[in-house]
């Protein structure tokens, strides 16, 4: 029944989307709402779009799984808008380009570069979109017991319909509405949780004890095949059958339902910190690499520099009337996001002590929606679970709307230029392609996959935008080679490490989170190749024009 909480969100989305239909007449309406959105409304829409499942559920889940250090993720997400404000917002808006590939062609005059950029958009949007749909499926499974595919298909269908009807004009209102919705649906339950758990639990959350022994008989449903390192012999009920595990390594099968006895020693999982342990409490990200500082920096580089390269974020700034308004939008967004991100810590810390068994099952992404019923088994718990479910659904919808729009734009505007009709069809096709992918991707970690999308964006579009806006000597060949190197060293290397599965350590860190070296490498390549090349004629005027405020230009 709780799953029905998502219904009002979907209905409101469709209604507001339908309202946009009346005014939708051109490609420009569809992609950038004809550039008439005010900075504050747009900042709310940017934040609404940006606060995805990764922020609403993923960060708190990562705190349960990796410890307090996971709170660096939202810092990077927010800092991304500071960099956007400083380096990109106003000049990018003044290019008049509708999409990043459009910018590439406007600045460097190369159609080949435009098509290549459009392909990069497809990679980034795909990496970002699939986990959103996955999270939708998982959340509905946890709170409503519906099969995984229901949530995925419902999310996909409502996104495709809203977009095909209303385009960006609809998306702007939908997302601004959803920002407010998400803010309220995240903060109110957080405050209620803090009050409802009582002083003892609050104190416990600030002085967490290591989750070393099961306080009561604990049932764990493993989401994946999980390698457990058992320290003391322990007898578990594996799918109802008693089984004694000796010291050493044991594999719990995917979907296995094991009941651990009260007082038994909690098995460890290599590379993952036990909730409440000293490692867990340390405010740096380790991910089992043994190099916490490098791991933290790598995540920060990817998230802070990747934000400006996310195709669905960039296109939002074009809905502002001019460069100055785009800059204000970025500045307001830093404040709005900062407000929201004060709260994942509440869910993460409470989850660490109230739901530590998620560490074993791997379903940490569900910590936020699972907390209320753990704290209060009565009506209040149910109500707040419903509210959080609605908020989580708003999170998937808003982000997916922007991403499907960016995907549709890349196909219908940059790869195969066509009219509004083709854009609408592309939006539906994009959703239709992503839904089956998400159905296959049931096992992924939402926060981790989203971060890989940031790493790709930081290694490709970030150098293109920063050098394209501030450096007159950038050439099409330099941009092309630099982006290729960036794409291979981010997406290529991460893909390779998925196949090779290196042992946790420095190598695994550098392969799995390559941003720390792939971003400088992409910048360096772009600069060196450009220096060996001649800039296209008129490149200097094109670049300088980006810095002229529009009030002074005729």
């Amino acid at each position, binding site marked *: 029944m709780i799953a029905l909480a998502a219904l009002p969100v979907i209905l409101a989305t469709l209604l507001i989307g339908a309202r946009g239909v009346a005014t939708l007449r051109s490609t420009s309406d569809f992609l950038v709402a004809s550039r008439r959105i005010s900075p504050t409304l747009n900042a709310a829409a940017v934040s609404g779009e940006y606060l995805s499942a990764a922020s609403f559920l993923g960060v708190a889940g990562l705190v349960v799984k990796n410890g307090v250090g996971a709170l660096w993720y939202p810092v990077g997400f927010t800092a991304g808008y500071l960099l956007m404000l400083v380096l990109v917002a106003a000049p990018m808006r003044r290019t008049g380009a509708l999409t990043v590939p459009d910018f590439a062609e406007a600045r460097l005059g190369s159609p080949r570069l435009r098509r290549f950029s459009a392909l990069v958009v497809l990679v980034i949007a795909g990496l970002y979109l699939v986990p959103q749909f996955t999270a939708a499926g998982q959340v509905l499974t946890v709170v409503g017991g519906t099969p995984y595919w229901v949530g995925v298909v419902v999310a996909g269908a409502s996104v495709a319909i809203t977009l095909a009807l209303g385009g960006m004009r609809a998306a702007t209102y939908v997302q601004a509405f959803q920002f407010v919705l998400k803010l309220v649906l995240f903060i109110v339950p957080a405050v209620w949780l803090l009050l409802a758990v009582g002083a003892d639990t609050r104190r416990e959350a600030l002085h967490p004890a290591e989750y070393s022994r099961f306080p009561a008989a604990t049932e764990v449903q493993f989401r994946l095949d999980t390698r457990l390192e058992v320290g003391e012999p322990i007898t578990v009920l594996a799918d109802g059958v008693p089984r004694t595990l000796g010291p050493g390594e044991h594999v719990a099968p995917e979907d296995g339902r094991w009941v651990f006895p009260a007082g038994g020693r909690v098995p460890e999982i290599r590379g993952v910190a036990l909730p409440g342990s000293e490692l867990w409490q340390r*405010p740096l990200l380790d991910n089992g690499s043994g190099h916490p500082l490098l791991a933290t*920096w790598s995540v920060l580089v990817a998230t802070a520099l990747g934000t400006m390269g996310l195709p669905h974020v960039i296109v939002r700034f074009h809905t502002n009337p001019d460069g100055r308004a785009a800059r204000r939008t970025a*500045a307001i967004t830093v404040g709005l996001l900062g407000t929201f991100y004060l709260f994942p810590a509440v869910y993460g810390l409470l989850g660490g002590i109230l739901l530590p068994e998620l560490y074993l099952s791997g379903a940490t992404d569900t910590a936020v929606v699972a907390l209320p019923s753990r704290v209060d088994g009565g009506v209040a718990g149910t109500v707040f679970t419903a509210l959080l479910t609605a908020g989580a659904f708003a999170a998937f919808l808003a982000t997916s709307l922007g991403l499907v729009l960016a995907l549709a734009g890349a196909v219908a505007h940059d790869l195969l230029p066509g009219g509004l009709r083709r854009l609408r069809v592309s939006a539906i096709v994009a959703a239709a392609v992503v839904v089956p992918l998400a159905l296959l991707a049931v096992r992924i970690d939402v926060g981790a996959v989203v971060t890989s999308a940031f790493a790709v964006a930081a290694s490709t579009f970030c150098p293109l935008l920063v050098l394209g806006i501030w450096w007159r000597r950038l050439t099409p060949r330099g941009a092309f080679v630099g982006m290729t190197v960036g794409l291979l060293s981010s997406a290529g290397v991460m893909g390779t490490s998925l196949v090779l599965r290196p042992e946790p350590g420095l190598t695994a860190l550098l392969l799995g989170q390559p941003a720390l070296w792939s971003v400088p490498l992409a910048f360096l390549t772009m600069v060196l190749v450009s220096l060996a090349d001649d800039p296209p004629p008129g490149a200097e005027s094109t670049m*300088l024009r980006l810095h*002229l405020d529009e009030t002074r230009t005729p």
Partner: protein
Amino acid sequence: MSRLRRVTVTSPQTAVVLTARRGGIAVPPPRLTESERERAERIRRTQLRWAAVSLSGGAALLVGLPGLLHVAPVLLAVRVADVPVAWLAVAVLPYPFLALLAWWQLRRAEQTER
């Protein structure tokens, strides 16, 4: 709805490029006048200077703070209102800092263009 002003369907740059592509002729890129060029050059230089200041602030947070937490684990033992200082440094401190930096940068950037 008729009181809403309608704007061009395609961006100016895209229009130029598309025309050139369809007509098969090279369209010269838009030129700046001498005074515009000087002004743009001046603005760009000043903006770069302010950007450098803001970026240093951002780097201090993103590079410096993790470094500090790494070398000073004692911050985990020091508590303010029962919350470890090291946790506050990650969970709370960055947001007002980023908001202040953004506000400062916005004012500088707008003054440069005045």
